[in-house]
């Protein structure tokens, strides 16, 4: 072994650091995030990454498991009324907020009303059918609905079901986010924007036996390479959203574990079929046959391979083929260049040309370039236009685009992946798709609580929407987590959020 004098010089330095880290790591869980969270108020929160922090900070009425089943958390049980217009919840006994206030039916009522009424609340749409909340007794609350709403329970497994301390919320008003007081396993200690969010163990947590850490520190590190470097250098115990090309090498290293969880969202291409005048000006937006030809010229498996290093499950709908609500009556087509060319001939366009808008994110750009090359075989001339995210959102909103590479983080209930996108004039309907029959079916699926009947309605919706192809669904990416091999109890839940309950670091 060659003599390395520098190492001896830095040895005391390394020792200092190792000591400092060694003492802390037994009790502190250090998590690397892909972005800096936005406001830490469940009513106002608007980002995915904020939910990662909420998973430790704020308990919710319900949670989901690996199979997307509803589990009790703050609510111990639920019961729908016969006409499905009222949901009665039994609240878990003996739960307190971080400030010592009791979490009872009155607190739940306060929170639901706050979600609905606070100016700037992002939960209003999610709880739209909830009209009033009744306190039946100290631990029973009833949500009254204007119409049956099947996705309600799923909404209550996310921020709409998070409960904050009424006392703290009233005192702070809309500044609550700078010092949130919830009832989760960890309470808020400190936040330095873009640097760290520090949470400390809540001694009176109702499930405290399952919590084995004293502190959780979230550090935003936007660059995936640097985030991974932090894990490998020992500064972090867990990172989310690892880059797909890093998986292979990391899995060879026994010191680390990798979780690969198929998301509940998707990656797709949204096509302007009616959002603006531009839809009629290009063959892709004008003619469903051209869109069909476009889909047939894509090799989904090839895309997943080249763009995501196979860390994705290919699909053609807004839910994955493994999802209960996947419509088997609309199967995934295989690449068929001949058929694509024939369709184009029928449509009367031999060399259709259009612009594919993408953001500067590396995988979106890669996807665009690969699609450009793939579809050339059928005669498509795809031009790529890259814009930064904010600008692309603006253009999508105005309908100033022809096709747009867009992904969605997904919601546990399939309604969250389709209503806002395919309903006429809904906020995320960038395609401008509008059909009265689809709207009627979408509303029916919201009102139908029986899963078997609901599935039938969804099959109809899928058949209806997918034949028009306002969105071409490509694949469902894997959430890629990398963490210290000594960390045990990691639950691979498809929403991509790490739960701290049950996590333990082996010595």
């Amino acid at each position, binding site marked *: 072994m060659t003599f390395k004098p520098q190492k001896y010089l830095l040895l005391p330095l390394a020792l200092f650091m190792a000591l400092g880290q060694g003492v802390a790591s037994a009790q502190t869980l250090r998590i690397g995030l892909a972005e800096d969270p936005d406001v830490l108020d469940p009513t106002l929160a608007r980002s995915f990454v904020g939910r990662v922090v909420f998973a430790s900070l704020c308990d919710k009425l319900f949670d989901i498991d690996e199979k997307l089943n509803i589990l009790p958390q703050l609510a111990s049980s639920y019961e729908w009324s016969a006409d499905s217009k009222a949901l009665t919840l039994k609240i878990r006994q003996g739960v307190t907020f971080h400030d010592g206030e009791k979490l009872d039916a009155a607190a739940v009522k306060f929170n639901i009303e706050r979600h609905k009424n606070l100016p700037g609340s992002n939960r209003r749409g999610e709880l739209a059918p909830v009209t009033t909340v009744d306190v039946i007794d100290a631990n029973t609350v009833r949500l009254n609905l204007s119409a049956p709403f099947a996705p309600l329970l799923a909404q209550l497994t996310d921020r709409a079901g998070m409960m904050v301390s009424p006392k703290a919320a009233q005192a702070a008003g809309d500044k609550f986010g700078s010092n949130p007081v919830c009832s989760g396993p960890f309470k808020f200690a400190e936040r330095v924007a873009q640097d760290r969010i520090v949470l400390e163990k809540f001694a009176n947590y109702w499930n405290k036996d399952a919590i084995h850490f004293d502190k959780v520190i979230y550090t935003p590190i936007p*660059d995936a*390479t640097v985030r991974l470097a932090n894990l490998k250098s020992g500064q972090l115990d867990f990172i989310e959203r690892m880059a797909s*090309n*890093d998986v292979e090498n990391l899995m060879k290293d026994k010191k680390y574990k990798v979780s690969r969880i198929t998301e509940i969202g998707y990656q797709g291409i949204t096509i302007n079929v009616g959002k603006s005048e531009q839809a009629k000006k290009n063959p892709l937006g004008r003619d469903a046959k051209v869109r069909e030809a476009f889909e047939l010229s894509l090799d989904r498996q*090839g895309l997943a391979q080249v763009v995501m290093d196979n860390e994705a499950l290919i699909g053609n709908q807004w839910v994955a083929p493994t999802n209960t609500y996947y419509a088997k009556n609309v199967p995934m087509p295989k690449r068929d260049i001949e058929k694509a060319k024939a369709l184009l001939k029928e449509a009367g366009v031999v060399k259709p040309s259009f612009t594919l808008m993408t953001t*500067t994110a590396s995988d979106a750009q890669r996807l665009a370039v690969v699609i*450009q090359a793939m579809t050339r075989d059928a005669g498509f001339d795809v031009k*790529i236009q*890259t*814009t930064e995210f904010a600008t692309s959102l603006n253009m999508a909103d105005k309908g100033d685009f022809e096709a747009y590479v867009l992904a969605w983080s997904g919601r546990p209930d399939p309604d969250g992946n389709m209503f806002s996108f395919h309903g006429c004039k809904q906020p995320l309907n960038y395609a401008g798709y509008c059909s009265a029959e689809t709207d009627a079916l979408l509303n029916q699926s919201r009102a139908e609580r029986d899963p078997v009947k609901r599935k039938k309605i969804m099959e109809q919706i899928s058949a209806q929407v997918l034949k028009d192809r306002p969105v071409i669904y490509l694949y469902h990416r894997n959430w890629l987590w990398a963490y210290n091999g000594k960390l045990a109890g990691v639950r691979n839940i498809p929403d991509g959020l790490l739960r701290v309950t049950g996590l333990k670091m082996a010595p």
Partner: protein
Amino acid sequence: MSQSLSYTAWLRLRRRPSALIGLAVVIGFILLAILAPYISPQDPIATSWGAIRKAPSAAHWFGTDEIGRDVLSRVIWGTQASLMAGVISVSISLLIGVPIGLLAGFVGGTVDAIISRITDAFLACPFLILAIALAAFLGPSLTNAMVAIGISAAPIFVRLTRGQVIQIKVEDFVEAARSVGNPPWRIALVHILPNILPPLLVQATLAIAAAVIAEASLSFLGLGQQPPAPSWGSMLNTAKNFIEQAPWMAIWPGLSIFLLVLSFNLFGDGLRDALDPRQR
């Protein structure tokens, strides 16, 4: 007078090997950019699903990138983008900055005061932020990045030109020109401008170096040359994600930026020495 200055300058330049090497390398890159269509071994945007991230080999001297394109070809073609980014941005800066600086320095008074305050305001804002805001406004593309960098760097030339003009305009030969009855515009363009060219030239050379890096920075942030067209900066942006698996994707464009910028810097420094009347 200017003729003998440039001859003396050339003699002095010849005695500084570092400057000559810099010049030679720059010329080499310029040739590379011009001859790219002829000497590039492959099509820089031709993808190949089977040859993703392949290490350097006989078929691909610099290896391939994340979608199978030949890195060597992309580096060669990328020379065009980087050189253009450098030269055109600085040309824009000169075209905007020199006339304004000339005006401010020559006319003086309130005009100078207003121009100086505006220039100071621009210079007080972080350069990269100005460039990013302008590039985002204009839309991500190589052309817009060049315009954004050019506009953001113009205040530097305003200040430099103004300073030089103020120094020169009190010289005897300018006094002489004035007393002979030359109109102000003629004095400014014919008498003053040629004499302030040397420091402007030096600064321009050094600015080209900085502009190449600025374009790489903007591309790194997604605001420069757009895919699939190659530019060293955007190649580095993609390469950073694959640095463990495919380091060659980053080494060659990084090295190219380094060599080109270093050469401009060496040449610019040599030029400054050669044109400096204070040195023997």
